[in-house]
């Protein structure tokens, strides 16, 4: 077994007095992709937000490659290589595609490094190269999702947290996004991908966790999830 990239021990968190995460423990090995599935409103996004530091932790611990990070502010976690690609259209709408991508590399040491990463992203998403000067708000939904992923890639993080990459997209676009995620795995192999629907996740994940009401109720390989009809019916409505 390889080293642990990210480890959570009995994490609890929520908003105001509402406890959303009720003791989550998770271990993501280096180079593996972990999928988290569950119905909406059961803590998937909150979990990623807690890991990223956008939502404060109530109790428990988070370790990134063995270093405790749960007391660090969000931007410092990014500097350590923990990067989230947020849900939906969280691109900088009034900036150009290139400015959006450059913001992903705001912590990059020099212009050469930024240029290298831009080339990498433009190779993966030729459409973004075509739209380089265009203001992000004028992109289509699929293009914006690509931009969000490209921007995450620009950070050159060690571990990427991806929040519902298929959300609100037409099936054909979902195919494109997942193709991009497969490419992404070659560059950043350690991923946590959150989805409401387990179907697409199974193609990419090495291991799947099912979350329900702020707790993991099952975990196993994608193959065993497919065979587990009861589980799929009970928690995922399939």
């Amino acid at each position, binding site marked *: 077994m390889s080293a642990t990239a990210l480890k959570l021990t009995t994490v609890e968190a929520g908003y105001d007095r509402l406890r959303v995460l009720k003791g989550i423990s998770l271990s993501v090995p280096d180079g593996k992709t972990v999928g988290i599935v569950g119905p909406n409103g059961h803590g998937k996004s909150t979990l990623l937000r807690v890991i990223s530091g956008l939502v404060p932790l109530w109790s428990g611990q988070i370790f990134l490659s063995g270093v405790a990070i749960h007391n660090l502010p969000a*931007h410092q976690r990014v500097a350590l290589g923990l990067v989230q690609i947020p849900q939906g259209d969280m691109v900088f709408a009034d900036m150009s595609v290139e400015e959006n991508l450059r913001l992903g590399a705001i912590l990059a040491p020099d212009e050469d490094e930024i240029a290298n990463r831009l080339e990498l992203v433009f190779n993966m998403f030729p459409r973004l190269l075509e739209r380089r000067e265009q203001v992000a708000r004028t992109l289509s939904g699929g293009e914006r999702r690509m931009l969000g992923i490209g921007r995450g890639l620009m950070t050159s993080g060690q571990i990427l947290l991806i929040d519902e990459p298929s959300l609100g997209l037409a099936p054909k676009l979902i195919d494109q996004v997942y193709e991009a995620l497969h490419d992404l795995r070659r560059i950043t192999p350690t991923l946590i991908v959150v989805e409401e629907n387990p179907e697409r996740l199974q193609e990419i994940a090495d291991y799947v966790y099912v979350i329900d009401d702020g707790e993991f109720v099952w975990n196993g390989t994608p193959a065993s999830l497919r065979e587990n009809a009861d589980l799929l019916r009970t928690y995922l409505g399939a």
Partner: protein
Amino acid sequence: MDIFLQIVISGLTVGAMYAAGTIALSLLWSSMGMLNLANGAFIAIGGYAAYWCMTVLHASWIFALPVAAVAGLISGYLFYHLLVRWMYRQADFQINIIIATVAVAALIENGILNTAGPEAVRQPFQVAGGLPIAGVILPYQTLVTIAIVLALLIIILWVLTRTRLGLMIRAVSQQKEAAQLMGINVSQAFGGAMMLAATIAAVSGVLVTANTQLFPGVGFDATLKALVICIIAGLGNIRASIFMAVALGLFEMTVQYVFGQRYGFPAMLALIILVLIIKPAGLFGKETVTRV
């Protein structure tokens, strides 16, 4: 024709000064959702810094603006780190900061009152002479004022669009959470915006006082007018506020010429009430400006 030119020239001068005060307000609103009513205090600080530099240190007028700018920068830094950074994460920040900045404005104004005295003095930052064009004299003071404001605008736009700090400020103003997820320190971006705004206000303070007089409460009027302009233009829209500043400068001067000196400001206030009734988000504003 002479009169028309006079109105245009004085309108452009006050418009240019309003523009400087307005971008300081607009920058903080668009990046932090912060209505900074202590803007006037920074205007006064700039005015007094230039005055101190030229009368106490007997320095050349060339140093007046840089000294005022540095005074503004330092005040902005202190203002951010002593007050704003402890408040901006709170839920009621947008309301609380208005009250807090009024308090800071009063503190600074009284501080100046107690050290420099209440007398209105002449700002020594003056350029004598003028350029005769088409039958009127275009004072060098006017040209210098407009040139400095133009330089300020160019510098601000350059900082916002071409520098790393500017990129950070714009990112935070558009998507605070996404900016954090890119590794941007929101506090650092806010601090930078605060220092930038205070520097602009302080430099504009030199210009405002040079065209009127210098006294502790000098910034109040300028801030009120900047606020009016910001609201009419649509809070947070920097380019529209520059345009509105010049337009309202011309409007005010025209009203003053036609109806008399004392009607200029009331006419502006009447205009803002009208705009707020007809277009609550301002002429160029977006309907949704609620930020959390």
